């Protein structure tokens, strides 16, 4: 019985004190009768067997357990209170963290915008620097194309004037390209009659050097390397390489007659 009691008590200790309290109270229920009986038996001093002592011991044990439980319950209450306080603390900290998070996000957004705009600005600065031309050069060029009436008609221009905003038939033929291709002089090569007429009206001076033929080109000025290959996509495949310049004329390699 003692073993059973000790087992039971250990089992009870492991459970929360709230549950345990009813058990302690009901097993066995200490009522007035029992206490009176015990008091009576003590005053009688009768050796009533071990039963009374057992019951007494049981009672004392119960009381002890009860006290223990109350103590534990009190401790648990304290712990619970502490827990609540800490939970409130944790909540507060959580709020703070969230606030900081929001602020961080905002700051990051603002900085990202600023960085992006700065990058755009840098890009536009680069672009502007790349395209910078000296104003003198621009003025020189503007003067060149205006003085020659290439972009603005001469003020006394009337229909019938042979001057044009593009190189005329005569100018084209008297250029380098014109001389490279040995053009036969029969017919007007597809130019409209008006143009050829205008060209024919002018006296045929000895190959005038027109400024549009770059006689003043600097030595360092070269076209980007192209390798003469404008054929189909696979470069090494075809051999037709002479069609890029001789557009105005027949293929120079095939023309046998050189007479003008």
């Amino acid at each position: 019985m003692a073993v059973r009691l000790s087992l039971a008590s250990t089992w009870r200790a492991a459970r929360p004190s709230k549950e345990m309290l009813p058990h302690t109270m009901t097993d066995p229920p200490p009522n007035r009768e029992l206490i009176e009986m015990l008091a009576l038996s003590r005053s009688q001093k009768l050796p009533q067997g071990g039963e009374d002592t057992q019951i007494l011991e049981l009672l004392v044990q119960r009381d002890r357990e009860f006290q223990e439980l109350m103590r534990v319950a009190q401790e648990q209450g304290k712990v619970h209170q502490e827990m609540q306080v800490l939970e409130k603390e944790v909540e507060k900290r959580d709020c703070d963290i969230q606030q900081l998070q929001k602020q961080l996000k905002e700051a990051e957004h603002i900085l990202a915008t600023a960085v992006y705009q700065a990058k755009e600005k840098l890009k536009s600065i680069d672009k502007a620097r790349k395209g910078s031309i000296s104003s003198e050069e621009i003025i020189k060029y503007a003067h060149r194309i205006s003085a020659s009436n290439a972009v603005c008609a001469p003020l006394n221009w009337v229909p019938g004037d042979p001057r044009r905003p593009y190189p005329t038939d005569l100018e084209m033929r008297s250029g380098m390209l014109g001389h490279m291709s040995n053009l036969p002089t029969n017919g007007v090569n597809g130019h409209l009659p008006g143009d050829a007429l205008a060209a024919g009206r002018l006296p045929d001076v000895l190959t005038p050097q027109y400024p549009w033929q770059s006689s003043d080109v600097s030595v360092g000025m070269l076209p980007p390397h192209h390798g003469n290959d404008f054929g189909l996509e696979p470069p090494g495949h075809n051999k037709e390489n002479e069609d890029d310049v001789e557009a105005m004329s027949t293929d120079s390699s095939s023309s046998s007659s050189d007479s003008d």
Partner: protein
Amino acid sequence: MAGVMESEEQARNSFQSELEFIQCLANPNYLNFLAQRGYLREKPFVNYLKYLLYWKEPEYAKFLKYPHCLHMLELLQYEHFRKELVNAQCAKFIDEQQLLHWQHYSRKRTRLQQALAEQQQQQQLPHGNATAK
């Protein structure tokens, strides 16, 4: 050494010929000529036109005397434009518009001069009235 010099000479020649050729493109009659002979249909020629776009860069463009050619070059990149150029009417229309545009600034200048002359006349008139009295 001779080989290197030759290629420089070649490069200079090709620069000059390309300069001349691209400016010829400003002439709508010439464009019509090219179209009618079928050059504008050939792929190598179209590739060449695309290659010629380098003349738009400022360091090359400063050699062009007839800047209209750059606009024509841009238009020539489009197949539709190249197809339309076969018609003589199309070329004539372009020619007319080009000439009108060419005369735009001189017209504007004459109008400004006229306006200025009228303004001066108006200014003189009240003075004339005042002195007549």
